[in-house]
């Protein structure tokens, strides 16, 4: 059961990370383009938009990865304690 759970979580993360960054960058570029269109600041709006969007994408991916490492570490700690218990018993 736990193995299939891991597999599902892994797939979930794989599907998430891919879209997360692309979408944020594209959204930033789109917002920059909109700013250019309405305020006649060509091309600086889209330049800033891509940079901010890319940063936002990185941030999103980083946050997902942070949660992921936290889970991994917790798992490792659990394994360590359980193996220690076994050692103590034997």
């Amino acid at each position: 059961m736990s193995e299939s759970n891991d597999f599902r979580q892994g797939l979930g993360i794989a599907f998430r990370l891919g879209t997360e960054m692309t979408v944020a960058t594209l959204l930033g570029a789109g917002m920059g383009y909109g700013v250019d269109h309405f305020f006649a600041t060509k091309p600086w709006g889209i330049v800033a938009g891509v940079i901010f969007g890319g940063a936002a994408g990185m941030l999103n991916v980083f946050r997902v990865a942070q949660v992921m490492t936290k889970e991994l570490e917790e798992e490792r700690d659990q394994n360590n304690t359980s193996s220690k218990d076994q050692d103590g018993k034997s």
Partner: protein
Amino acid sequence: MESPLHHFELHPIVHLSVGGLDISINKAIIAMWVGLALVFALFMMVAGKGRQLVPGKLQSVLEIAMEFIQGMVDEFIGKEEGKKYFSFIASLFIFILTCNLIGLIPGSYTITSQIAVTGAFAVGIFIMTLVIGFAKHGGHFLTILIPPGIPKVMVPIMIPIEIISMLARPLSLSVRLFANMTAGHTVLAVLFGLAMSASIWIGWMPFGFTVVINGLEIAIAFIQAYIFTTLTCVYIGDVINLH
């Protein structure tokens, strides 16, 4: 030969319009009604009979599904807070899953391959998270735009980045579901087109692949429904717990 994207096109079956608004009924709407009816019938079959202490086959399946969703809600929103949102999350999961699976029956329509549908879900969820956030925290909710522990100099840079990353959430939520379903069904259509246009001596090969990929698509239907609901839970949990 038909284009592989042909089966995504929608043509009105019954022309209807109310006050200039086109509400013609097409294949997608019928598929969605079937999905709704199916979910409703499935749960009414169990609920109508009265819950048994020793569950029957159908009740066990539904109970396992509900426990699975309960676990998800507990993990991402919290045990106490999650109770309020459990019914919403459960309906969302079951409905998206049913829609994804209905699309795999040859000749039917995958509603989740329309970005209008997934977009409506995602925007609805986004507005819901905003409403929950403001109702729960008031004006203090805006501090979600400032991550904890950053120096004051960075605040003007971080706010636009956080706004973009907030707005990217509904977009990525809808695009992910739509793109995965569309891609899967396009692959199926291409392979089936190959099978139909080749002679039987070689045509059995792409046909065999369609069968294999249909199996893969069943897995993707489950995974995508799971991801969509997990992320909904994560987003609701984020606005409730504020960092």
